[in-house]
C-alpha cells in the first residue's frame, strides 16, 4: 500500500489477472502433505502457497511453561527465503513475529484447548511462494492441518482478504494488487457463527467501505469453507 499506480489496475471490470472484483483466484487444497506431522496441509490461492504442519498435542517442556487446565498454542509463520523476488533473509522479522501472533489468535477460538492440559500444540506455517494474501492462506492451511491432526474443533477457520483497488471493492488480493491497493483487510472467521477472529487493516477507507468489505469477505469466504471441507473429505473418504 502507499504506492500509487500510474495506470488503472481495473480495466472494464477486469483485474490484472482477468478476474472480476469478487472473484477468488484458483484454490488448491491438499490435506496430509507432511508424513512426520500429526496433521498437515498445503493451500494455494493462485501463486500464493502455504504449507502448515501441526505437531501435538504433546507434553510441554520445560514443565514450568505448562498450563494445568489447558493446552497452549505456539504458532510460527515463516516466509521461505525464495518465496518472493528479493530473497528474504532467514530468521523471523518483526512482520513475521506479528503475523505469528495474530494467526495464533485467529485459530485459538476454534479449538477446545481445555481437553489437553499441560500440553502444547505447535503450528508451523511456511509460505513457500508469496503472491499476496499470505497470512490468510497460511490460516487456511493451519485450519486444515489442525483438523487433520484430529484436534477437536468448534469449526474450521477460513481466511480471506478484501480490499479496495482504484474505486472498486475487491476480494483476494494478489501481490501486485496488494502493493497498489487503497486498502487491504485480511480477515479470518469461523463460518458457522460468522465469528471474526482476525481483522487487520491498512490503507484509507470510510467506515462504510470497511463494513462493506467485511460483509463481502464473510460471504465469499463460504466458498473457501466448502473447499476446506472437500479437501478433508478427499483424504478421509476414499
Amino acid at each position: 500500500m502507499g504506492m500509487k499506480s500510474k495506470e488503472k489496475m481495473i480495466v472494464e471490470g477486469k483485474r490484472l489477472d482477468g478476474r472480476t472484483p469478487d472473484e477468488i483466484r484458483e484454490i488448491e487444497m491438499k490435506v496430509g502433505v507432511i508424513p512426520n506431522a500429526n496433521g498437515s496441509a498445503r493451500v494455494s490461492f493462485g501463486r500464493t502457497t502455504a504449507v502448515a504442519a501441526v505437531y501435538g498435542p504433546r507434553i510441554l517442556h520445560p514443565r514450568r511453561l505448562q498450563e494445568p487446565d489447558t493446552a497452549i498454542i505456539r504458532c510460527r509463520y515463516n516466509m521461505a527465503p525464495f518465496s518472493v523476488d528479493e530473497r528474504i533473509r532467514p530468521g523471523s522479522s518483526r512482520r513475521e513475529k506479528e503475523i505469528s501472533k495474530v494467526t495464533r489468535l485467529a485459530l485459538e477460538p476454534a479449538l477446545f484447548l481445555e481437553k489437553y492440559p499441560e500440553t502444547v500444540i505447535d503450528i508451523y506455517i511456511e509460505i513457500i511462494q508469496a503472491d499476496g494474501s499470505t497470512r490468510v492462506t497460511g490460516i487456511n492451511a493451519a485450519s486444515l492441518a489442525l483438523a487433520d491432526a484430529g484436534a477437536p474443533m468448534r469449526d474450521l477457520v477460513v481466511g480471506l482478504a478484501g480490499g479496495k483497488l482504484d474505486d472498486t471493492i475487491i476480494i483476494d488480493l494478489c501481490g501486485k494488487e496488494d502493493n497498489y491497493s487503497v486498502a487491504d483487510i485480511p480477515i479470518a472467521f469461523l463460518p458457522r457463527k460468522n465469528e471474526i477472529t482476525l481483522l487487520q487493516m491498512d490503507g484509507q477507507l470510510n467506515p462504510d467501505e470497511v463494513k462493506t468489505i467485511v460483509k463481502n469477505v464473510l460471504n465469499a469466504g463460504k466458498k473457501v469453507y466448502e473447499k476446506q471441507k472437500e479437501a478433508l473429505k478427499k483424504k478421509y473418504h476414499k
Partner: protein
Amino acid sequence: MRHDYVLKLLESGERLDGRKLDEFRDIKIEVDTIERAEGSARVKIGKTDIIVGIKMDLGEPFPDVPNQGMLRTGAEFSPIASPEFNPGPPGEDATELARVVDRGIRESECIDLEKLCLKPGEQVWTMFVDIHMMNHDGNLIDVSALAAVAALMRTKMPELEDGKINREKLKEKLPIKHIPITVTVGKISDKFLIDPTKEEEQVLDSKLMVAVMEDGKICAMQKSGDQGLSEEETSRMIDLAIKKSKEIRKLL
C-alpha cells in the same frame, strides 16, 4: 478473586474506578520532555505512562521507494514498567505494539516522506520513533500512538552542514500532513469499553484497535484478544472508536 470481581462489575456496566464504559481516564500530554531528542512527548493516561522520543538520522532509502524518507518504529517493554516485563529483545506483544503504531502513522500519510528525500536512491532522512514504557496500567497502544503523534508534531529537523548532521541547530518542523488517532475498543460479553486498565485487559474477550484520521476515515485496524467478533459488533466498535477519536484529537 479480584479477577472475578472486575469481570462481574464490567458485565453489569460498571468499572472499579467509577468510570463510564466509554470514558477515558485523565489524559496528560507533555511535549519536549527530552531535550536531546529531535522531538518527544510523554503521555499519561491514568497510571499508564509512556515516553516517545524521535531521533532523525541519515540513511539509504528502500530500493522500492527511492525518493521517500524512512520511518522506523520500535517499542521496548522496559522492565521498570511492570513486574511482568523482563529484559531482553522485544517479544511478540512489543513487536505488535510497534507495528500497530507504525501502521497508523504510515497509512494515514502522517508525514510527507517525499519531502525527507535528500538525494533520490542515495540519501534520505530516517525517523526513529522509539516507544519507551515507564509504567504499564493498560491500553498501551492508544497511549503509545498518542505520544508518537504528539512527538512527531513537535519534531524539528537538525541542520545539515556539509552533509553532516548538526544536532545543536534544529530548524524547521517535520512536514506533517495528517494526524491519526488510535482508539482501542474492548469487548466483554455484550459490553464495549474504552481505555481498559491492566486489570480490565485481563478479563476482556477481545479488542479492536482503530486508527482514525481527521475526516473520520479509518487508516489501520487490528483485532486482538482470544475471542471472535460478529460483523455487527465489529461495526459498532468502529463507530465508537471514531466517536472517541474526536475527543482525543482536541487535546493535541
